[in-house]
Each structure stands twice: as C-alpha cells, then as structure tokens.
C-alpha cells in the first residue's frame, strides 16, 4: 500500500474519516431496516443490492431466474465469495440468513418481508432456491438484506450482542474495531468480489452534536460529515469541502386520524392539502434542502403528478362544498361549531416541531383552527389512537410496496396492530396496493401504483408537506459518491463507497 503524505492535520490520505450523529445499537443487518447505517452497509452485502436508481441489481448473487408464476426464485452466487474471516461464503449461508430472519419474528421487523417465503433451499454451494406461497413483488428488494455467516452465528440467537458488535460480513470493508460511543474502524477487504476498494480505511466517528460535527470537519479532525441545512453555507464557503446533496424518500406529512369526525369529509382533507404553502416550509424550515411533497411516492419511479399546492380559492370552494362557512378571519365552521383540531408530533424532534408550527400558522390563515401540541415520544407511543393529527415521517426509496402498504392498507389499521396509525381505509387504495404487491409485471405494477396515488388524491389520508434532502460534506478531492435517493436520515450515502477514492 502506498502511503499518501499526511496533509498537515495528521489526516492520513488513505483513511477516510466520516462523522455522523446516529449510532446503531447493533451492526447486524437483520436487525435493521433496509436503511442500514453506514457501517452495516459497508460490512455486509446481500444477494441483491440497489443501483443508483434504487433498482435491485446483482449483489452476492451473480444472477437469478424467476418462475413464471413469480413463486420461485433461483439465485446463482458469484464464484469465490469469501467472508471477512476468510471462510468461503456459500448458499448455505444464504439459507441460514433467510431462515434466521423469518424465525426472528417479533425480534426483527424485517421479517415481514419474508412472510411469503415458504422454503429456502441450497441445492449446491452456489445455488439458492426460494419458494413463495404467493407472488411477492418486493422480494428482490428485500433480499438486499446482508447475508449472515452461518459458521459464526449457528446456534446463536439472531439478536446475539457479540455478533452485533463484531460482525463478520462479505461487504467491501471489514470491521477492525467498533467502540460504542466513539468510532468504528473499517479497512478495505481484499476478498471483496469486485476487488479491494480504493479507500484503504474508513473510520466512522460518532459525533452526536451537530455543531461539534461541523467544528471537527472544519478543523480537519474528520474528512467528511453529515451536516444540517443551516450549516450548508459554512461548508459551501470552504474550498476544501464539497457539499453532496442527495434527495431522500423520507417525507414529512400531517397524518389525519380518520376516526375524528372533522376528517370524515374527504373534501376537508383535500382542502387542507391546498391550504399549506409547501415551498415556504421548505424554504424556512430546511432552508431549501427539501422538495414539496404531494404524495407518498414522489421519489419513486411510479410517481404521478398530484395537484396539491397552495390554493386559497380551492380551499374556499372545497370547504363551502363541504358545508362550512367562514366570516372574515374566523375559522371555518359548520352548524356554529368551528373546525378545530390538535396537531401533534414528537416534541423531541425539532424539525417536526418546526414543521408543525409553520404548518399550523398557515392552516390557521386558511381558516383551520389548528392547535399545535407537540408531545413526548413516550407518550405518543401509547396514544396513537387518541391523536387528531400528527406530523409523521415516512417513506423508503426502495420498493413502493414497503413504503406504502403499511401506512395505507386498511388491514394494517392501528386497531389490528398495524402501522396504519390514521386508520385510513379506502377500498380502491386497498385493491391497488394488493395488485402492486402481487404482480410481477412492471407495467402492471406501474398502473397499480398510479391507481393508488389517484385514489389518495381523491381521498387524502395525509397533508403532504415535504421530502427532505440529506447533506454530506466531503473533501473536495473525493471522487465516487453518486447521487441516489436515500433513506431515512440519509442512510445509504455509502452505497457505492467501494468505488470512492481520493484524487491527488
């Protein structure tokens, strides 16, 4: 390995240090959502992975075949795959992984993606056969989950703490050290199937405070960092740094509780969607690092145009049609009772609170008497059903099904234990969602999700507000990062880190 000269700050050119605020509890990919944290992302690799367009492409699997009925998948692994500890990676590891995740049940939320899986077979070292009880379109997407080493985990629980801290994977980087609360040290893995990554070493530093992160970045204590919108100007002003702005599929919206009589009339909900000035929110709350949201799939290839934007005339028209009247600046009222609802969110989440406040002011201006009322997370967790309206965050960049089935299908309603917290129920939506999940045909799926989105426009469950963007400051000489729609908190920034390099 050639030694690049240190650049004064003691930073080694072969070492790439990145500061981030969130620290995972565990580095086990089976215990994370698809939005895996950087370390897990770098250490593990799944059968499939996502490309720049978030399409499932070959990962550990070199190729696959899907049966015509969409119920049998046969994967062929790449040749010569090895684990970081040097053992060969075989189809038995894949089978072990899928079985373990399926068995994890309540322990691993991810297991919901494998409910349709009936059997997993490993007829030989490089072949994996997955049989489903019914077609399940998002399967390829779900199989991007990191494959776990059977030889390490056999006989242990999937929640094994030791593995969670000292994972063995087959990804491009090998974990050398993980010090909770401090850092994770990774080094380039020569046995990676695409060859050793160019960056010799990546250090992920956990710096929970935003300001401290910026200071470390500007001092050269770290090379790159996750930064906040209000810090963007400082980064842009620094010649040694480059600001990487990536869109995310993470949106914020006002969820409306359908059990509340105020929201019974879909025209009221439509009106609400015409009553917020999304551009103003994007401009003030995230300083422009966001995109007005009009539906749950705006960052998906299935996106269709939705008409929602600030339109007071439309609000008036819809509200009148719904039977409400308004005198001057007084709120809309019907039969003498003004339209009032509480808008809540997690009090600890300053971004959501800011959105809540701005949205509340805007809605008030349009005659909706909104009472802003942030609540602590712990309280919300046990009071979902009592909320009237709530600033939610949702959305994944991957398969549309995983993004929208949970929150909008009536079978996932809160009372049934699902994550449809607003108890939204719409037969058209249900049907469209089921179609999108069951068919394998891309065109058919596109139609299904278009229908779904149209149904949402007619009968909005949420007041869509904004998609967030994620900001990362990187050294100006770093090459390789590619724009991709990322997930929650901007996880996924390291998706192609094996291709990154420092040009000199």
């Amino acid at each position, binding site marked *: 390995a050639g030694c690049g000269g240190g650049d004064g700050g003691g930073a080694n050119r072969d070492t790439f240090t990145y500061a981030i605020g969130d620290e995972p*509890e565990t580095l086990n990919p089976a215990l994370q959502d698809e939005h895996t944290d950087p370390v897990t992302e770098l250490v593990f690799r799944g059968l499939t992975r996502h490309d720049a367009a978030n399409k499932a492409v070959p990962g550990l699997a070199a190729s696959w075949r899907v049966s015509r009925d969409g119920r049998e998948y046969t994967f062929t692994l790449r040749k010569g795959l090895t684990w970081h500890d040097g053992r060969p990676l075989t189809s038995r590891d894949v089978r072990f992984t899928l079985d373990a995740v399926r068995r994890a049940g309540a*322990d691993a*939320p991810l297991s919901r993606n494998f409910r349709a899986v009936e059997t997993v077979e490993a007829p030989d070292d490089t072949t994996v056969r997955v049989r489903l009880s019914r077609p399940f379109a998002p399967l390829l997407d779900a199989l991007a989950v990191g494959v776990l080493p059977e030889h390490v985990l056999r006989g242990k629980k999937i929640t094994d703490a030791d593995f969670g801290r000292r994972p063995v994977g087959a990804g491009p980087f090998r974990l050398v050290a993980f010090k909770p609360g401090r*850092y994770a040290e990774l080094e380039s893995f020569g046995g990676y199937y695409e060859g050793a990554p160019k960056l010799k070493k990546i250090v992920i*530093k956990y710096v929970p*405070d935003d*300001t*401290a992160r910026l200071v470390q970045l500007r001092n050269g204590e770290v090379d790159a960092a996750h930064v906040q919108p209000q810090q963007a100007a400082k980064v842009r002003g620094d010649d040694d740094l480059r600001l990487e702005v990536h869109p995310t599929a993470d949106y914020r919206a006002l969820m409306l509780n359908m059990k509340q009589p105020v929201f019974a009339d879909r025209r009221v909900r439509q009106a609400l969607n015409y009553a917020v000035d999304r551009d103003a929110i994007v401009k003030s709350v995230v300083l422009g690092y966001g995109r007005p949201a009009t539906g749950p799939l705006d960052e998906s290839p299935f996106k269709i145009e939705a008409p929602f934007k600030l339109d007071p005339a439309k609000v008036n028209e819809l509200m009148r049609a719904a039977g409400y009247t308004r005198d001057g600046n007084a709120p809309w009222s019907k039969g003498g009772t003004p339209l009032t609802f509480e808008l809540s969110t997690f009090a600890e989440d300053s971004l959501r609170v800011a959105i809540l406040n701005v949205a509340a002011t805007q809605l008030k201006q349009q005659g909706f008497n909104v009472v802003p009322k942030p609540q602590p997370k*712990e309280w919300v967790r046990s009071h979902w059903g009592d909320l009237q309206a709530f600033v939610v965050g949702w959305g994944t960049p991957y398969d549309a099904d995983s993004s929208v089935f949970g929150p909008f299908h009536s079978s996932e309603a809160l009372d049934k234990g699902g994550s449809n917290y607003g108890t939204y129920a719409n037969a058209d939506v249900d049907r469209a969602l089921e179609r999108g999940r069951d068919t394998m045909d891309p065109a058919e799926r596109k139609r299904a999700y278009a229908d779904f989105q149209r149904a949402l426009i007619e009968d909005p469950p949420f007041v869509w507000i904004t998609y967030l963007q994620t900001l990362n400051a990187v050294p100006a000489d770093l090459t390789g990062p590619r724009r991709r729609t990322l997930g929650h908190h901007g996880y996924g920034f390291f998706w192609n880190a094996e291709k990154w390099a420092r040009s000199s």
Partner: protein
Amino acid sequence: MGPVVLKGFLIRRAATAFAVVVALSALCFALLDVAPGSPAAQILEARNGGRPPAPAAVAALERRMGVDDPLPVRYARWLGDAVTGDLGVSYGSGRPVRDVLAETVPWTVLLTVAATVLSMAGAVAVGLAAALTRRVRLRRGVEAAVFVLGGMPGFVTSLLLLYVFAAWLRVLPSGGVGGPGEPFDVSYLVLPALALAFGHHFGTYVRLVETGVGRLRDAPHVDNARVRGLPRRTVTARHLLRPGMVPFTARLGVGVGGLISGAYATEVIFSWPGVGREAILAARGHDYALLTAIVLVTGLIVVAANLVGDLAVAWLDPRVRLSGGVDGR
C-alpha cells in the same frame, strides 16, 4: 472524635448504603414502570429505520422479552440475578450490562474527577478573591461573571468552549477520546472537564466559598492570625477557608452526583463516551437492567461522595459531631 466513633459511624453508613442500594433499584424499576413508554417500542423503532413500529409487533416483542410480567416478578427476577452478580443485558444492544458499564464508567469517573477538581479549585480561588478583595468593582465583576455562568444552560457553556478552543484557536481537539491509532491524552479531557466544571454548579460553589469566607473575614481568630504575622497564605487557607468551607464541602458531595447525571449535554457535545448519555438513553428506552445498573453505580458514588463530604465537614470543623443527635436537650 476517636477512632471508635468513626468506626461506628462507618459501619452505620455501610448499612444504610446497602439500604440505599436496594431502595434505588426498587425505585428505579417502579419509576420506569410508572413512566410512559415501552422498551419494546424503543427497540423496534431502532430496528425499523426510525419509523414507529406497529403496535402488534410491539406487543409481541414485549411478550417475548417478559416485560409485560408484573413489576414484582420482574424486580424479583432482576434481584435474583443481581445477587449472583449478573446485572442482565441491555435491551437495546443486547450487550451485557456489565460490559456497558465497564466501557462507560471509567470515562465518567475520569471526567467527573477532573471536573470536580477543576471546579473546586476554581471556586475556591474565585470565591476567595471575591470575598477578600476590598475592590468592590472586582467583587461585582466576579459575581456578575459567576451569575452569567450560573444562568447559562450547560450546552451554551459547552458550545462556547468548543467554539473558542477547538474551532477558533484550534488548540484542543473538539471532542471524543481519540480515534483509531490516536491514543487518549489529556487534551481530550480539557474541554469537557472545563465545561462541566464551570457550568451551572460553579456559581453556587463560588458563592458558597464567598459567603463562607466573607462572614469570617474579620472574625477575632483571623485578626489574631494576622497579628501573629502569619503569611497571607496560611491566614487564608487555615483561618478563613477551613472554617468557612463547611457549606461548600457539603454541596460538593452533591455536586458529584449532579455531575454524573447532569453530564448528558456535555457528553453529547464533546462525544464523551460516558455513562450520562447511556443513562438518558436507557431511561428513554426503558432499559430496566441498564438503567438500574447505572443508577446503582451513580448511587454508590453519591453515597461515597456524601460520606466523604460528611467526613470532610467533620474534619474541617471539629465541633461537628459525626455521631449526630443532640445530647439530651
């Protein structure tokens, strides 16, 4: 106060310390139980990419973890394990609590000790200067500064220190305790220790020294010490400070406890891998085993600190009787 009295006192203290520990652990369970929230929800949210988990999943996990058992059952289970030395595992990461403590407690002790020493030394110096100076302006200035520090939330002090020393002067690292290949050295300790030492408590320390010493400034025994030609240092240290330190010393024992749980903001800002942050996360996550263990560690430190405080008060002022109680009145 002969050694016999001291021994009896220590034995009694040890017994009550045991009671404190039991009470603490029980209380910790009870409070967590009463407070809203569920460990399962917390865990699943983390595993669910930060999105709220579905209630059914939460319920299932709770069953699996046994946290829906009645409180006494859970506490008895914990206690049974604890007496055999098994502190259980942290819900969140599944790691043995003992490991978590082993990793975080030493850092906390280091920081707390450094901060305590700093704030003690600083408070004595500043408090004395304010109490003894005849320059009213200087005294007012010191008092004002102390009130500014005392009125400032911890994060402001921390961020200002961070800004001045790490971002602007760039003489000290901005946080952490050293990355891979960078061994820990004191420079990492300086800023968090300063932030903690000169935060909210500092003002009370200074004022306690100031009032404690100020009211003795022209006591006859001090005059006498001066008239004997003792060096200023001796007069100050032995004849003013020592008798004047009683309230300050008593407050110090408390300060240690406050520093541990109050270190959260400082630990976050300076990425200090201490137990304060762990405690808050554990409390948020209803991580019974971890929180109880942390609370017990803190409790032992607090009990010890207050013991030292009581002994120090008795040592500083021999009129104080350790045995307590007022004779026959």
